[in-house]
């Protein structure tokens, strides 16, 4: 598709895992009062929890808010082997001794950044508990290995995200942790908003964006029928970008939308049928 352009926001500069806000705002289309609520939480030093399915815009929202509030952003993708030491820091061995190395959380606390723990329930329990003193009036981070008690710099804010439908019950957040956060619920955008997002992010024509959203809506109907994950807005944007760069729509949907979602032959066949139904050659 000649002449089309992919718009990408200025990511800003990054140093030691800290992203500093750039000149251009990361694109984000609000769906409600989430920007106002988040802004108030930031001003009142309240921790925020973002809940919602994968690829619905949680990370983009945080990037946008960090830009809007002019705060550096530290993002940590949590996994099941992430320990407290990975967040807080550890001793590293240098030539003739050891040296303390701050973890991403300590770094964010010291410089007053927004610390975003993505998919926090995946982390080990000790990693989740270490954030507790940062989420109440104390706003401190105790580092037991150095005996330090780091007080959070002004502007520090803790944000966590998780996908309620994705994890098992055993990996759910403990009630004592949940109560420390203001929760913002995210979901896939409404069809009109999703069309607008796809057009902005990929540069495809409106008709095609509309078809992609209709297709995703149908495929999301297969959620309880063996499809572990439904197509996210992120997946739609990726597919639309392929189309905008000249890949035929049907092929782009197959490789960008259908194949990543499942390996089950029947599910793939049904999704191909939906592509046949929605897209016109």
């Amino acid at each position, binding site marked *: 598709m000649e002449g089309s352009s992919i718009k990408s926001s200025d990511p800003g500069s990054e140093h030691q895992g800290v992203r500093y806000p750039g000149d251009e705002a990361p694109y984000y289309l609000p769906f409600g009062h989430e920007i106002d609520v988040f802004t108030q939480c930031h001003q009142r030093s309240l921790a925020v929890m973002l809940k919602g399915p994968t690829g619905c815009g949680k990370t983009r929202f945080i990037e946008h808010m960090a830009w809007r509030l002019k705060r550096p952003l530290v993002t940590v993708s949590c996994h099941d082997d992430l320990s407290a030491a990975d967040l807080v820091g*550890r001793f590293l061995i240098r030539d003739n001794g050891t040296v303390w190395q701050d973890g991403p959380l300590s770094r964010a606390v010291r410089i007053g950044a927004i610390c975003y723990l993505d998919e926090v329930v995946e982390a080990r329990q000790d990693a989740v508990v270490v954030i507790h003193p940062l989420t109440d009036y104390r706003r401190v981070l105790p580092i037991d290995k150095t005996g330090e008690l780091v007080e959070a710099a002004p502007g520090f804010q803790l944000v966590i995200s998780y996908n309620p439908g994705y994890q098992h*019950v055993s990996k759910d957040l403990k009630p004592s942790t949940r109560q420390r956060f203001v929760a913002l619920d995210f979901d896939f955008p409404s069809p009109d908003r999703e069309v607008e997002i796809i057009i902005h992010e990929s540069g495809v024509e409106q008709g095609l964006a509309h078809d992609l959203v209709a297709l995703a809506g149908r495929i999301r109907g297969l959620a309880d*029928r063996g499809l572990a994950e439904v197509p996210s807005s992120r997946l739609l944007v990726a597919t639309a970008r392929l189309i905008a760069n000249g890949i035929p729509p049907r092929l782009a949907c197959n490789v960008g939308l259908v194949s990543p979602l499942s*390996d*089950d032959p029947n599910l793939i066949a049904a999704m191909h049928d939906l592509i046949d*139904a929605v897209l016109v050659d």
Partner: protein
Amino acid sequence: MAEPEEIIIDAARHATVFVSRLWSRPNQGQDNACTLAAHKQRLELLLAAVHGYDIRVNVAQEPAPVSALSRLFRNRPRHMVEPRALPANDGAQIFLPAQLASPAPLQLFRVLALQQAGRAQRRAVFGDAMPSALAEDLFYLSEALAVDHMLALDFPGFTHDLLSLRHAMLSERLQPALLNAPERVIEDFYCQALNAHPALIPSPYITAAAAKDSLTWAIETARGVSAMCDSGKIRYRGMRSDLWLGRTLPVAAAHQKQLDAANMPDAPAQTPRTARLSRRPEVRKKSEDEDDAVQGMWMLQMDDPQQHVEDPAGMQRPTDRDENADAGDIADSLSELPEACLISNPRPALEVLLSDDPPAQRAVLPPGLTAAGAGISYPEWDFRIPGYRERGAVVRLQASPLGDPAWVESVLAKRYGLLQQVRRRFEGMRPRRIRQNRQADGPDLDISAYVNAFAEQHMGLPLEDRLYQSVRPARRDIAIALLIDISGSTDGWVSGDLRIIDVEKEALLLVNYALMALSDPFCILAFSGESAQNVTLWPVKDFDESDNNLIHRRIAGLEPQRYTRAGAAIRHTTSLLVARPALHRLLILLSDGKPNDVDLYEGPYGVEDMRRAVAEATLQSVHPFCLTVDRHAPQYLAGIFGPGHYAVLQHPQFLPVVLADILKKLVKT
């Protein structure tokens, strides 16, 4: 060095794998792309995605053979009767021909499925009341056009397929010379519909937003046609349907008000005679007055011994009293009936006539009896509501009967080699949480490694970079539940002198030995039952039980029992697992076939309830896995357990080894 027995078993396993791959490989020589079986699951998923709920796709019945009497007295001439199986719907599920002779069968199946599902959806809201046959046919034509119109707008990619179908059907329409005046008018309506583009509604049809709009239009138009053709004198005999229009079956929900029924009284176990139906009669809607006591034109002598009139409506026939009648003959007779009414009888069935396509609804006894004794009630998923039925099934725990200890000894002696094999497969799986030294990365320093590295560096040796410690969660915090189906069907023979239940018992015995050695907590439950109020569970081994002799005797005491109401059994087992303080919980179901019971549980109800029960288990962090000997299982188990969460055993005699393998694999992952 491997023992000869191991080599033989290994060779047999390799042969099993080879044969099963051969078996599962699609037969490339035979073109099955034109059969419904090849596309059924795909179509059901497509319909689920389009409509947001599950719609079952069934094989459409071919018309019943025409008897001499009906040939003589029929009210429709032969040219108006479509000899092929036609697509149809009953408001809840759809029916498609088993095979389509088309250059693009998949495309045709897709369009037919969407058409019927769309009509079923509109029908469910409206119902069936019609003033005349003429109005009824016009109504169905209008509805078919409305659904095509919606499909063309929502799915423009299918417009071409819709057009192809219409053009193909147009070429098969009847010659006007064979029709009388009102029939010619309706035929004109039909051809106008087929001639039009699917995205357009041709005149004189209207754009019917809902079925009631079609009804209003059909009644008014029928009145006009009747007046125009003077149909008081000329009888309207109907129109010939085809693949495009299909058929409209009675609404399936007609029987649903009875579905809250309770129990069958306990009956002595008796194996019914079975036979297969070549075709199933369609379900006939019961007329309101057919059970009236008023004498009709047929007189039935209810006393023995003379009864001559056989009535498909279910009145008692002489053959009903014949306990030795050939089930095959009965199946042949029933296959010739175009339709039959569903009735229920409190007595156990003498014959079970199997059909590939059993009716969705079942007649059940009226509510009355409730099972005695306390039980644990669980909700049951009713896919037709769709929603949960509170107190849907009651699980009753019974003490396991103790079997013969000699059986245990004989099995252990006979299967000694197998036991060793199973044990070996579990070796090296003792879980512990361990601290790992000399790691490249980790939360703590490995002081010992650091001191060594420091010294080595001063000696001029290269710097060692593995200087950290990490504690890995190597300990498997796991709880396992084995749920064993001991329904009546496990009485079937699988090889030599072994029944399915025998193979299950042997597998349990051997795996019990192996799991005991692992020291992971596990429990074994057997389940069966009859009716929703009597789902029986026999705890063979509790989590904390360790008396092997008692457990072995309980395993020895397992014998085939009634039916498989799997949903409630899974829910109860899940609740036991969830109560365990374990990080991982594993539920393994050992089954020999689809869920079934005396009531409507057989068929989609049971499958959907089981699917829900499995989904609930997954949500509660239980990992369900099913091991089955039912070769038809892939058709339904993939939908219930999800791909990769079930295994079909081609050779049940290898169950102990396979069960051990699966346990090992699941526990390790």
